[in-house]
């Protein structure tokens, strides 16, 4: 059996997992996967987070991808990072850079088990801020300067590829080189608030082809988090595992301890359980949803396609939130089958993401003024 086949039947423990530590965020990105904004009072406590880390150590989960929300606004964030790395669980965390001061940057540079990803969705302030909000480009670049000045080379610049920045790949690469960083490109998913803007922002078919060629040309120098495996339908597979690992080799723990099959599938249909009911390991090993995902999947309408062995039908979450059947083509199928399928979907009936933590309604490039009491997203968080 090939490794990919082995992985499709699931592992006893995830290779890595995504852990959203809080729904609180100082930004309100239009494509936020977790519809973040306000902290939820039911979020896991420090002790509960430590108990999860203890389990991850026992299960030998190699690392966690910590996100949010903006994880660094949790007052116990640095303590949890220290706790994880001291327990041999590596930490990669995503941040918009708001808390990456020169002092924090020096602290980060001193750890071997820590990776930092600064999110940036435009190589120019104009393109970035239309998606991530005013001032967010400047915040991200200041964080990069601080990291570079502290001698932390190889931090990641994490870009969600959209219709507006797909033409800026070389410019992103230049920014990465300027700071001694590594570029990481990931796919725009119609998840969370992303469901509202996906039609408008997902790359065109032409941009998608150009992206694929660019990724092939850059090989392993550019990270993708395996997020473009649907592009393998073009021919040569991109570096990485090229499979959907949802519930098989990866999963998501949300701020409340809910365990979902993947970070792009925050919906009751993909909810496997909660760490508060007997721990994470129990959910990973005993969830019926995960057991289903680990059975051989049918390709449905895709089975007869010559690209199916390469793309495996694409991303489950992308299909689900665009209203497509899970055993059919990905909405961005490189053969165009997704576009045809989408034309028959009744947009009013597509599934809605579970949970909305937005402080205010969020739209591309324009934000309604927040009420004064909403201005500080950290309200309610102890310092």
């Amino acid at each position, binding site marked *: 059996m090939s490794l990919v086949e*082995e992985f499709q039947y699931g592992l006893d423990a995830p290779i890595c997992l995504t852990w959203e530590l809080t729904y609180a965020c100082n930004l309100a990105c239009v494509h936020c996967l977790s519809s973040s904004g306000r902290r939820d009072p039911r979020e896991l406590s420090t002790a509960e987070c430590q108990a999860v880390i203890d389990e991850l150590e026992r299960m030998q989960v190699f690392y966690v991808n910590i996100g949010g929300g903006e994880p660094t606004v949790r007052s116990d964030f640095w303590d949890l990072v220290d706790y994880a790395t001291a327990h041999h669980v590596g930490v990669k965390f995503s941040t918009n850079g708001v808390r990456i001061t020169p002092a924090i940057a020096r602290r980060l540079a001193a750890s071997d088990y820590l990776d930092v990803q600064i999110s940036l969705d435009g190589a120019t302030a104009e393109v970035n801020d239309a998606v991530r909000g005013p001032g967010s480009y400047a915040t991200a670049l200041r964080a990069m300067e601080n990291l570079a000045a502290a001698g932390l080379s190889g931090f990641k610049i994490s870009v969600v590829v959209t219709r507006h920045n797909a033409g800026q790949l070389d410019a992103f690469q230049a920014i990465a080189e300027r700071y001694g960083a590594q570029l990481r490109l990931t796919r725009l998913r119609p998840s969370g608030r992303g469901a509202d803007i996906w039609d408008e922002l997902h790359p065109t078919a032409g941009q998608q082809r150009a992206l694929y060629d660019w990724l092939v040309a850059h090989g392993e120098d550019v990270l993708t988090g395996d997020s473009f495996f649907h592009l393998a339908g073009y021919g040569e597979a991109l570096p990485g595992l090229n499979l959907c690992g949802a519930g098989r080799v990866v999963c998501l723990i949300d701020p409340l301890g809910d365990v979902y099959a993947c970070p792009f599938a925050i919906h009751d249909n993909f909810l496997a359980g909660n760490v508060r009911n007997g721990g994470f390991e129990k959910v990973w090993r005993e969830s019926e949803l995960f057991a289903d995902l680990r059975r051989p999947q049918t390709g449905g309408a895709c089975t007869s396609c010559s690209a199916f062995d390469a793309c495996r039908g694409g991303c489950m979450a992308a299909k689900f939130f665009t209203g497509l059947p899970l055993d059919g083509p990905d909405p961005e199928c490189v053969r165009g089958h997704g576009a045809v399928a989408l034309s028959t979907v009744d947009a009013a009936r597509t599934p809605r993401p579970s949970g909305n933590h937005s402080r205010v309604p969020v739209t591309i490039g324009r934000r309604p003024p927040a009420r004064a009491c909403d201005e500080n997203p950290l309200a309610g968080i102890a310092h």
Partner: protein
Amino acid sequence: MSTEFDLDAAWRLHPQVSLRPERFGALLYHFGTRRLSFLKSTALLDVVRMLDAAPNARVACVNAGVAPEQVSTYERALGTLAASEMIVERS
């Protein structure tokens, strides 16, 4: 990158590598290079586990029960692991 592997040298798992046994062999994660790798058989896992206590890799293969005519196969696999710094020479 050299793939020449010295079977007569003493080897060990890189101190920053975490090894997790799986039904197909094992997963390896290197916290320094952030690379994930795989041992595609439990027999190779046995060899890797024997490295540290053996005076050299050839003896580790023997101790793990590798037949003499199979040693070259394991030499190649160990060479790949050495090239990605998953295993390093012991001094």
